């Protein structure tokens, strides 16, 4: 069959496991074939398939920036069969990777504009590559201010704490607002749900794109808040999640209407979503 079999993964090694929360780990993965590593290119928002052989394969968003050339990162919440098997791995374990799949955030159209990032829980994972792509020295001048509003159930449920509390707030023209759902003794920051915090922060829509990812209920109420603040539907982007098996538009199950999330998504503008059946 030779050169091009898109269903065949490439063998990779887990080189590091970063504990983000009680049930989320970030797996840092390097292809065993260094040429594969050098040839890998993804765009912010894309997904890939991660395999634990003998258990199965599942789709995850890439949470590392395309500008990082040394490894790939996947942030995985322990929930099902494959994710549990991943959480049982130790550094040095072999996995399979294939991809990248899908479209990406419209980072070309976002040039010269400001960006508002809104995330909830592990929903920050697909947004993180976009932020770090824009913050990379070679790209920073192409983009305006970056505002990040992020919340989790508790302090322990916030992912990427190093970036959230140090790297991003210290970067020029970046503002980060964090919130947790329920008050905690040691927490000095904001308490409350993300949509309500968005209403409080009152971001302005001028020259700005918004990317949102989080639980469906959070997205729903955040979109309402944004529309009240004057954001246009064609400037609001989110990612859809559907069960996938092939990632290349053959296995059928990730369709929403006539669109396949693996090919035509996972990133959709609110304008596009409004034209699709509400079946996701």
């Amino acid at each position, binding site marked *: 069959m030779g050169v091009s079999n898109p269903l065949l993964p490439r063998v990779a090694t887990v080189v590091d496991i970063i504990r983000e929360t009680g049930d989320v780990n970030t797996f840092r993965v390097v292809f065993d074939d260094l040429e594969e590593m050098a040839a890998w290119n993804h765009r912010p928002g894309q997904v890939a398939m991660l395999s634990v*052989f003998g258990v*199965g394969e*599942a789709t995850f968003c890439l949470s590392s920036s395309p500008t990082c050339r040394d490894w790939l990162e996947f942030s995985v919440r322990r929930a099902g069969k494959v994710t549990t098997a991943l959480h049982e791995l130790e550094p040095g374990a072999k996995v399979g990777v294939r991809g990248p799949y899908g479209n990406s955030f419209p980072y070309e159209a976002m040039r010269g504009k400001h960006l508002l990032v809104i995330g909830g829980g592990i929903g920050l994972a697909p947004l993180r590559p976009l932020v770090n792509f824009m913050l990379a020295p070679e790209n920073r001048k192409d983009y305006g201010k970056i505002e990040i509003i992020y919340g989790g159930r508790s302090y322990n449920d916030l992912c990427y704490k190093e970036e959230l509390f140090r790297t991003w707030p210290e970067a020029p023209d970046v503002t980060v607002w964090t919130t947790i759902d329920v008050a905690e003794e040691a927490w000095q920051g904001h308490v409350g749900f993300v949509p309500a915090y968005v209403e409080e922060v009152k971001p302005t829509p001028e020259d700005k794109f918004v990317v949102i990812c989080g639980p469906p209920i959070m997205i729903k109420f955040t979109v309402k808040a944004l529309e009240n603040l004057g954001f246009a539907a064609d400037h609001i982007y989110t990612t859809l999640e559907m*069960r996938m098996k092939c990632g290349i538009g053959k*296995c059928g199950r990730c369709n929403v209407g006539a669109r396949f999330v693996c090919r035509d998504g996972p990133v959709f503008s609110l304008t596009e979503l409004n034209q699709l059946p509400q079946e996701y």
Partner: protein
Amino acid sequence: MDSKIIKKEKLLSLLERFIADYHVLAPVREDGVLFYRPVDIPGDIELNPGRSVLPPKGRLFPQTEALYGYRVEGEKLTLNEYVEEERQVVLFGVHPCDLRSFAVLDAVFLEEPRDAYFAARRNNTVLVGVSCSSVLPECFCTTYGISPVEGNGADIHLTDVGAGAYLVEILTPRGKDLLQKFESFFEDNVAGAAEAKRAKEASLVKKISLQVKVDGLHEKMASIFENPYWEKLSRRCLGCGVCTYVCPTCHCFDIMDDGTKEEGERFRCWDSCLFREYTLHTSGHNPRHALAQRLRNRFFHKLSYNNQRYNTEGCVGCGRCVALCPVNIDIREVIGTVRGLV
């Protein structure tokens, strides 16, 4: 288009040669039920087959197919890709509706990035079409512009024109090669064969019991997604998925592992959009949790989405889903009802 004649006894000896030179898959009866199976004896083949229970798509997209093996030795993980065998396959006796279904599957599997397994099998398969000899009560291929005697999609196509003779139409360069290789089996076309084929077509088309019209269907589908009709229709659906398993254009599959962490295989197998688990997220969320949503998705796929996405109809009118649905859900009736909805 070039055409020849082959006599029935010559056809049987040609099939014998095919069996010697190729793997031959052909319609055979097992306990009275028609299947496409590997064949060793020409006499086992149904030369004028009816409709097989499972469509012949399994040659290109098997019900279960190992994709690759994996093996861990010490620090090393090796993947062993399975390669399609060298010997060509002759898929014999495919009806016009199923020939069309191959074009529908091509649009899915050969769209970039190509499915390497399907592409290898497709490339390695010689298609011998055969005109229908009868019309079953559920047949409605003509709705989709298919003629029961035309072999579009086949390499060569046979039509029984009576008196122990078959009209052989050579439809592709590969068909031409095949004909040249086995030239001695064929005779020059005779006067009257083309007319006999037309007469056969006219008599078959007349027997199609339900003339289903699809004009305006795409536009109508766009506006009836939320119609209560789907919920009502789903009340009698068992969600058994037989319609998807016998459908020649259904292409959904699952991918699973079989083995230990040290050694095993990854394979794929047919899956069905009517099953609850098909879209079930790990989180427990299910975008199509209700059977009504799943049944609606199936009909939208066949009658609207496939056409939107690939510009080709998702149904070929073979009638298998109609014949086998245990609760008589009939796509022809669904089309008729949908066209009448406001």
